[in-house]
Every structure is written in structure tokens, then in C-alpha cells.
């Protein structure tokens, strides 16, 4: 049900459902003390994405299991300063980085495995595989290999001073290592996006100054050589460097406040962003449209999306069910051939026409059908029956009805369908007498519904 998880500045974890545009508080709000419980970073704690691993303002590392809704405190990171980076290695070790620059590698119980010094003023730390990259304010980006943690394998160098010979501040607010390559991207507080190639040189290989505010968050996307970046003014953009320079592909509009965290889905073209304007927005990265917007009542610090999204699920499910229907129709057609008076060629054409009609009007019919009780279903049946009578295709009514029922996605209602099929056949048979009243029935469905009720009582 929960597609998306956000962590709030008050310490609240929320699960969002993107279809309903609603959220659910996973932990109780009353017990939270924002000064201690504020969640600074959050990652998925397990491969099945049922566990959330997060760090709090009181330097505690906690996990939350979404299937059992239980919170577990793992350990407290020693030292002082806010935890600015959290990474779970493929070997299930937790790497935390705090403001003072100390990076700690520990296992789930908190036993220290290795420590590294990232430099004071550390603002961000992220990893990929067995490497981590860390950077911050006046803290150049360093890349460490976790197997050899004594010294960084690569340290970046600041760009040359500008035309007025003023030194440009080092202020990396977010850093990402690109998987399977030697490149890394940073978003800086000096409004630039920088691409570094560790094999080539220590200075950035490509740079792009974007808009007028510091870039707060970046995220990888489902495409190669593309990233999302968001700044403190609420602007979210997609950047591409397949050519010789970093270019802005498009912007995703809607955020009114600073974007604190972006999560680009690894396989699907969706990007989730959250910020301090208390909204989480999911955009479709190709069409740039807003897919879902959820008001979360508190300022948000981190966002995660599951691999399986419910928005994609329903579309997929409907497709599968339609295919099942077709298979069943093809099986049934030889049986009903003997009974039908209509032409087969007309049948297939009419079926196509009905298909289009029902798909376009499908939403209306579904909304009608959502009313509980047989009455609405009768009306629906009669409407379906009317449509078929128009085209003299009575055999099609049972499958059409079944299709509508299953498109609702309600397994419970699938059972009554077979029994109703028999009943509708009876109704359909009796409708032959009323062919002259076709037009009347179509125009006044209420009347038709009444008629159906009357037939039922017989």
C-alpha cells in the first residue's frame, strides 16, 4: 500500500499512498521530541525495502520495520555534531558521517569496524558499492574505499579563483557516486553542479551554474548519465551530460519551498521530491507532469520510493485482466455461434466499438458500479444490454459485464459474475420482444433499470 516513505523534521515517519494522495503516520506523533528525534537521513535498510534505516538529531541510528510497524534502536554514534550522511553497504555495514568530519563504519550492533576522517564541515556523504564520497563547506570532496579506509583514494581540488581573483567557496551540499564508473557529481551552495572524473583530474571536468540559489539535493535517475537536482528556491531539474557538457533537460514545477531530498526511481520514470513546504511531489520524468502531490503537514527531510509502485501496478493489472477476458471470449465464441442470429463479422466490429466505448466511458461506469447493492449493477447491466441491442450483439453482454467488474479490481465481486451471466441471458432473451423500444430504453436508462428490477422479481 505504501509506495513512498518520507521522514519529517519532527521525527515522524510517514507512508504515502500515491493513488489516494494520502499519508499515514507510521509512528505516533505525541511521543516525538523534534529536538532529539528529527530525522536527518534515511535509507532502505533491507533489500525487500520493508525496513527503513535512519539517523536522528540525537545521533541515534534506528530502524523501522514497515510490515510490523516496530522501531528498533540500533546504536548511538559517538562524538558530537549532526549526522549528515548515512549509507548502507552491500555487506550490511552502516556508514555514518557527521559534521565534525568523522566517518564511522559499524555493523548493526554498533561495533566499530573502521573510522575515516572526512574533514571538518562535512555536509554530505553517499556511497556506491564499496566506495563512499564525502564533502562539505570548506571541505573538499574525498572518496574512500571501504576496504582501505586509512586514506582517501581521491581528493578533489578547488576550482581556480574567478575574474576578480576571489576564491570560490567550497560548499558541496550533496554528492553522488555514479555506479560502475569513476565519476561523481556534486551540487554546491555556489549554485553549480559539478562533474568529477577520478581518473582524469582533481578539478571538476564539467560544471554548470544553475539558477540563483544553492543546490540542496541531487539524485540519480533511471537513465544513464542523468541526475535530478533541486535548489533552495524549490526548483527541480533534470540534467544530462551525454555530450560534452552538463545540460538542463527539463524542470519539474510545483515545489514552493526548498527541496531537501530527491529520490529518482531506479527503473521507472518517476521522481519524488520533498521539502520544507510540507508537500511531497511525484513527477513523471518524461512527461514532466505531476503524478501525485501529498500534503504531509510537517517539514520533510528525506524521501524514499519503493521499487514497485501502486500507480504502475493498477495499469499492469488491468492489462493482464483484459488479456484474460479476450482469451475467455475466444473460447466461448464457438459455443454461442449456434444461438446467435447476428453476423460474426458484425460481432467482431461491434465488439471493437463497444470496447472503445466502454474504455472511454469506463470510468463513469465504474463509478456507477461502485455503489453497493444490486440496483446499480442492474442499471449497469441494462446500459450494457442497451448498447449491445443497438448493435444486435447480445452474446457480448456477459463478458462486458465481467470486464467491468474486474476492472474495478475487486476480487470479491468476481464470484457473482458467473451466476449473473445466466440471468442476463434470460433478460436478454426477453429483450427480443422489446426491440421496438430500443430508442426509448437508451434515452431513459432509469426506466430501463426499472424494467430490469421488474424482470428480476419475476
Amino acid at each position: 500500500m505504501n509506495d513512498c516513505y518520507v521522514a519529517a523534521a519532527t521525527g515522524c515517519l510517514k507512508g504515502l499512498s500515491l493513488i489516494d494522495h494520502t499519508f499515514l503516520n507510521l509512528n505516533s506523533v505525541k511521543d516525538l521530541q523534534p529536538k532529539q528525534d528529527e530525522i536527518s537521513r534515511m535509507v532502505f535498510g533491507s533489500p525487500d525495502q520493508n525496513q527503513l534505516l535512519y539517523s536522528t538529531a540525537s545521533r541515534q541510528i534506528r530502524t523501522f520495520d514497515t510490515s510490523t510497524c516496530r522501531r528498533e534502536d540500533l546504536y548511538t554514534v559517538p562524538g558530537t555534531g549532526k549526522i549528515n550522511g548515512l549509507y548502507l553497504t552491500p555487506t550490511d555495514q552502516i556508514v555514518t558521517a557527521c559534521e565534525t568530519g568523522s566517518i564511522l563504519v559499524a555493523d548493526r550492533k554498533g561495533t566499530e569496524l573502521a573510522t575515516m576522517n572526512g574533514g571538518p564541515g562535512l555536509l554530505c556523504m553517499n556511497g556506491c558499492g564499496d566506495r563512499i564520497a564525502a564533502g562539505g563547506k570548506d571541505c573538499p570532496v574525498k572518496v574512500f574505499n571501504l576496504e582501505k579506509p586509512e586514506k582517501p583514494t581521491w581528493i578533489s581540488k578547488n576550482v581556480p579563483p574567478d575574474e576578480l581573483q576571489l576564491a570560490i567557496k567550497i560548499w558541496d551540499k550533496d554528492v553522488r557516486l555514479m555506479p560502475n564508473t569513476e565519476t561523481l557529481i556534486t551540487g554546491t551552495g555556489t549554485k553549480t553542479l559539478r562533474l568529477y572524473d577520478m581518473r582524469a583530474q582533481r578539478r571538476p571536468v564539467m560544471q554548470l551554474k544553475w539558477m540563483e540559489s544553492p543546490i540542496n539535493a541531487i539524485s540519480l535517475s533511471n537513465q544513464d548519465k542523468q541526475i535530478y537536482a533541486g535548489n533552495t528556491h524549490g526548483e527541480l531539474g533534470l540534467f544530462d551530460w551525454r555530450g560534452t557538457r552538463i545540460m538542463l533537460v527539463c524542470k519539474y514545477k510545483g515545489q514552493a519551498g526548498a527541496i531537501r531530498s530527491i529520490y529518482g526511481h531506479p527503473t521507472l520514470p518517476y521522481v519524488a521530491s520533498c521539502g520544507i513546504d510540507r508537500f511531497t511531489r511525484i513527477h513523471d520524468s518524461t512527461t514532466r507532469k505531476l503524478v501525485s502531490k501529498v500534503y504531509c503537514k510537517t517539514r520533510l527531510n528525506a524521501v524514499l520510493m519503493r521499487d514497485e509502485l501502486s500507480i504502475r501496478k493498477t495499469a499492469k493489472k488491468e492489462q493482464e485482466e483484459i488479456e484474460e477476458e479476450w482469451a475467455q471470449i475466444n473460447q466461448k465464441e464457438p459455443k454461442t455461434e449456434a444461438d446467435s442470429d447476428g453476423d460474426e463479422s458484425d460481432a467482431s466490429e461491434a465488439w471493437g466499438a463497444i470496447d472503445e466505448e466502454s474504455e472511454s466511458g469506463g470510468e463513469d461506469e465504474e463509478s456507477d458500479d461502485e455503489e453497493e447493492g444490486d440496483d446499480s449493477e442492474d442499471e449497469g447491466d441494462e446500459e450494457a444490454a442497451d448498447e449491445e441491442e443497438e448493435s444486435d450483439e447480445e452474446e457480448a453482454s456477459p463478458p462486458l459485464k465481467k470486464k467491468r467488474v474486474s476492472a474495478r479490481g475487486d476480487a470479491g465481486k468476481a464470484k457473482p459474475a458467473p451466476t449473473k451471466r445466466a440471468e442476463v441471458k434470460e433478460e436478454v432473451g426477453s429483450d427480443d420482444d422489446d426491440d421496438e423500444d430500443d430508442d426509448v430504453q437508451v434515452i431513459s436508462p432509469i426506466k430501463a433499470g426499472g424494467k430490469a428490477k421488474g424482470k428480476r422479481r419475476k
Partner: protein
Amino acid sequence: MSDDEGGSRMDVKDIPGPSKASKKGGDIALKKGRRISRSNRAENARNIKMKKAAEKRGRQEERKKLREKLGEKAVPKEVPRTIESTREHDVTMVAAEDEEVEHDEEHDEFASYFNRDTTPKVLITMSPYAKVKTWKFCYELQKCIPGADIFSRKNVALKKIVKQAIEKEYTDLLVVHEDMKMPNAMIFCHLPEGPTAYFKINNLTFTKDIKKSGESTDHYPEVILNNFNTRLGHSVARMFACLFPHNPEFKGRRVVTFHNQRDYIFFRHHRYEFKKEGKKAALLELGPRFTLRLKWLQKGTFDTTGGEFEWVLKRHEMETSRRRFFL
């Protein structure tokens, strides 16, 4: 309804004969000559207006009597269709008892004021080399907000001012910006770590220019915050509330109103007196009269280059609908 409404004009056309204008007043002018003098025109206009008002009152009385007569069966009063009543539904409207919002507000930057841990101490300053009108505005604000201090800017950077103010334990900083020798904007910074808001000032009138205005007193005023319904509106309203001391002195009968309508915040300052055994309040306007419009709200103290914005008015994205408001 009645034919008298277009009276004078019709009469002019109907009059035959020589066109000697009558310059003497009185309603006899309707009969003499084609032209009506200016004074007569004014008087006729006044008469028509009075007649219309009387008719409207008559209709209202009739409706009122009908409603009373029918009692419970009366047709309910029609709600006028205004822009406020047809406002677009806003998800961020704060419900009456929202546990999460209450929890959020208990722990936000203004919590120390609302828990009575700190008393407000306001610092007012303006842009460098401010002109007369800006100083005048600052003096009026000082009269209105008890315990406010004014300092001239002397070209000090705002971030430094913020730092110094925090050291001197000020709780709020108001900076009046100037353009074309008139105050046009206001930066409102809540101090220890609080949000910064930037408002544009429209329609400023000083106390001296208000007709029938009165002199303010030193009593602590009551504060009225109207119509701040959304979450953003709540934050802004709490910011305004933090300016004034906790305990209003009702003896002084002074009230400061921040009324939000369609995202414009109207500031009014009155002295009231209850009449007719408390059923009506007579108001005497004191102090300046101005409207504010929120442009952005930033988390943290003033830092437009590096700070994070909680809300920014983006005109092309947000001002697309006439029925969409944010406060």
C-alpha cells in the same frame, strides 16, 4: 421599478419651446428650459440616490418581515457568490483540532513566546540613508508596538545586525525598506533562529492623514488575527502575534488588527468603546493604516543567498487562478 429613476433626463427632452437655461436652483428647473444647471444636476442626483436607497431599504424591510412571519419555514438567506466563497479548495487548510499541526506548533520557533518563556523585544530599523517618510513610518510603528527600539541603519550589513540583535536579546527585527523615498517593503525576522518573512507594503497612510484619528496610548494592545486559515497563514499569524506583549491591558481599549483577505494583510489600529450594552463597538482609528503582501518566507534568520525558503511566491506558477490563495 419606478419611472422616476430616469426622471430629469426624460423631462428635458419632453420640454418644448425656447432653450433658456434657468440658473436658479430648486426643482422648478425641471420645467424651465432644456439645460439644467450644475447645482440642479447635483441636487437631482442626490434626490435620485436617496429615493433608490429608500426603495432598497423598503425591499429589505419587506423581506425581513416575510422571514419573521414564516419563521422556520422561511427560505434561507442566499449566500452571495464572492471570490472568497468560491475559493479553490486548499489541502493545507488547518482543521480545528489537528494533532499533528498542534504538535508541530508546540515545537516550532515561536513556541518560546507562546509558552511565555520569552517576552518580545522588537528592533526596528530601515534601509541606509532613509528619508523622512520611512522614519515617520518607523516612529508610528514604535508607537504601535510597545517596547520597540529604532536604530538607524548606517550601512551595516543585515546579517551583522541580526548577529548583534541576538547578542542583545532582541526577539524580533523589523527592517523597513525604501524605494522612491517611500517605505515599500518590510523584512520581518524572528530572532533567535526564527523564520524571516518579506512583505511588500501597499496603501500606507499615516495617522495625520487619517480623518478623525486619535492619539495612541501606552497600554498593551489586544491583537486580532483574522482569516489566517492555511498552514502558511498560521505561521505568519504567529509571527505577528510574537511582536506584542502577552497580557493585553483591556483598560486601554486598544486593539491592533491583522486581517487577511485574499492574501492581503490589512493592518489597522483602533481604540474601541462598547455602546448599547456591549452590542456595538465604536471605533476610533489610531496609528498607521497599511496593507502587507507576503512575498517569501525563509526558514532561519535573514540569508537570502544561502538560506532555505519555506515558501516563495512564484507568480507564473501560483497566480494562475483568481480563486487560489495561500494564506
